[in-house]
């Protein structure tokens, strides 16, 4: 039963992840990403961490991907136009290199762990209490750093996005030939 669930959702995660990259329409690509994230959430449950799975669905699929969809729809991004720049040779060399990387990575992981069985996560460690005790004692500093990082990102984004009254274009867009 567990193996069947693993195979099903593992395959779903892989196929939908490939679709995210391959699909020309950004809305479909985002929806494929939803499937990827939900499938990995199921894998988290199988690994014994329901809390992480719930967070994954709440935050990533619930909040972040909805934001993606909003942006795509607000900007009205249509199908990706195929740029003439990409030649078949480029595509194929990229595919071959990606397969080589995947193959050697897979080989390394297989060699390293074919005999060992990963121990299940400690239930008290991944419990809500266990996680928060870790987060707010040993890892308090990274937790606060994330807060600061978000503040910096918000300030940075608002500076770049805000329109000031004194802002009128005064510098022309660069032309490609004026670069040495």
């Amino acid at each position, binding site marked *: 039963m567990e193996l069947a669930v693993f195979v099903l959702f593992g395959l779903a995660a892989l196929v939908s992840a490939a679709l995210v990259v391959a699909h020309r329409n950004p809305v479909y690509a985002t929806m494929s990403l939803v499937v990827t994230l939900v499938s990995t959430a199921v894998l988290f449950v199988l690994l014994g961490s329901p809390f992480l799975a719930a967070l994954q669905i709440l935050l990533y699929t619930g909040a972040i991907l909805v934001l993606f969809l909003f942006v795509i729809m607000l900007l009205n991004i249509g199908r990706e136009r195929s740029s003439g720049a990409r030649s078949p040779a480029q595509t194929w060399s990229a595919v071959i290199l990606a397969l080589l990387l995947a193959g050697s*990575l897979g080989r*390394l*992981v297989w*060699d*390293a*762990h074919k005999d060992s069985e990963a121990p299940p996560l400690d239930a008290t460690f991944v419990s809500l209490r266990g996680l928060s*005790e870790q987060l*707010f*004692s*040993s*890892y*308090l*500093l*990274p937790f606060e*750093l*994330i807060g*600061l*990082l978000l*503040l*910096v*990102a918000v*300030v*940075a*984004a608002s*500076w*770049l996005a805000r329109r*000031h009254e*004194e*802002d*009128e*274009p*005064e*510098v*022309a*867009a*660069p032309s490609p030939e*004026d670069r*040495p």
Partner: protein
Amino acid sequence: MNPLFAVPTADLASLAPELLLTAAATVLLLLEAFAPALRRAFVPAGLAATIGAAWLLTGSDSGPAFHGLVESSPLTRAFSLTVLLATALGLLAAPGYLRRARLLAGEYPALILWCAAGLLILIRSTELLTLFLALELFSVALYALAAFHRRSARSAEAGLKYFLMGAFVSSFLLYGVALLFGETGSTRLDGIAAALAAGNGSPGLLLLGSLLVATAFAFKLSLVPFHAWAPDVYQGAPSPFVAFLSVAPKVASAVVLVRLVTLFADSPIGGRWPDVIALLAVVSMLAGNLFALVQRDIKRMLAYSGVAHMGYLMIPLASPGNAAWRPVLVYLVAYALMNAGAFVVVSMLYPSSDDQHPIAGLSGWGYRFPALGICLTVCMVSLGGIPPTAGFIGKYLVFLHAIQHQQLYLALVGIAASLISVVVYLRVVYMLYMKPEIAAPQDVAPDFGGQVAAVVAAAGSLLLGLWPALLIDWAVASLPVG
């Protein structure tokens, strides 16, 4: 309150410089919102916070803090002071530019101070999660600052290019951290070292993980082949910010790279590490200087020269060990002074928000702006590694280290690359003094802060070159014996 979650006072005290920088940035941002009339005082206030942080830093205690996620030692303090020096120089030069470009706002000093706080934490972190977050903290601030001139398309291009490449490289770092954690079961550097020494984990995956982590910092150092962002970002970003960008993040990233390479090279997976670093050093030194030779834009030229300088900096790492720290520290202090000084002068001599900074535009200006001309000349001579300047002392120690560790070829390549670079830098001096003036300067009005920064940088380069004992004694006192 549950005592489990109480933060010991000693931990907070050890974080005092970072806390001061962060708090000052936040206050500046609030003042921007509620008291915009004070805008002219924002950058000086940021400068005061930087100096205050440096003062707190010199008085802080050594030892680990926050459950060993960060540490403080004479070594981290020495490099942190170098970062704060670059921050102060960058801030001093900023008001003139910001006023001209009508960008005077609290966000600029706030982002610089947050960035400096992130760099200080990066230097001190001994755990990969903290390290990653500190890297993201300073990187996000850098991306926004590169695009700070919102009305300039080149500045936006610089910010976007830096952001896209930086985000891509962050994923390399995370992948590497995941592999290292998966194989060793620890994200702490000492835990990883112990697991490596015990022979835990698969050597292949560990090697891949360590290479991925090192790649991220090689990108921040703009070593060849991870240098492609540097010329475009330097050219488009505001010049006083480039004085900061071209120095401070490199100091912090170099510290992490020395830590990591020393860690990996001592372990069973370390066999080929010195060769990898030596290759990066040779390629960066040669390619950086050769590309710098053909640039017409002074900011792009300095970008490629920065690539070459990071190549020289890698030479001591090709024979890792505690002995590598001393040349690295001396080199970085010299680099901070001369490179920040060069960009500070450039920001005053090229005042328009026009995106071109032709070297030929400086023709004959050495007589028109005697003080700035001399400062730029000293910085160029120092960058070229000609005595009696700090740049010479840095290069001397780096090459000496290579020779002492039986890597004569690295020293020879370095000397050959330096010879090429002399042509690069003396071309600027030649333009300043030997050519007739072709264009009268327009709107060049060097401001007081910028001139102070330029004089401090140039005088520092000269002083440390004339009395190297000042710098070397300080480095010896700060660093473990090697």
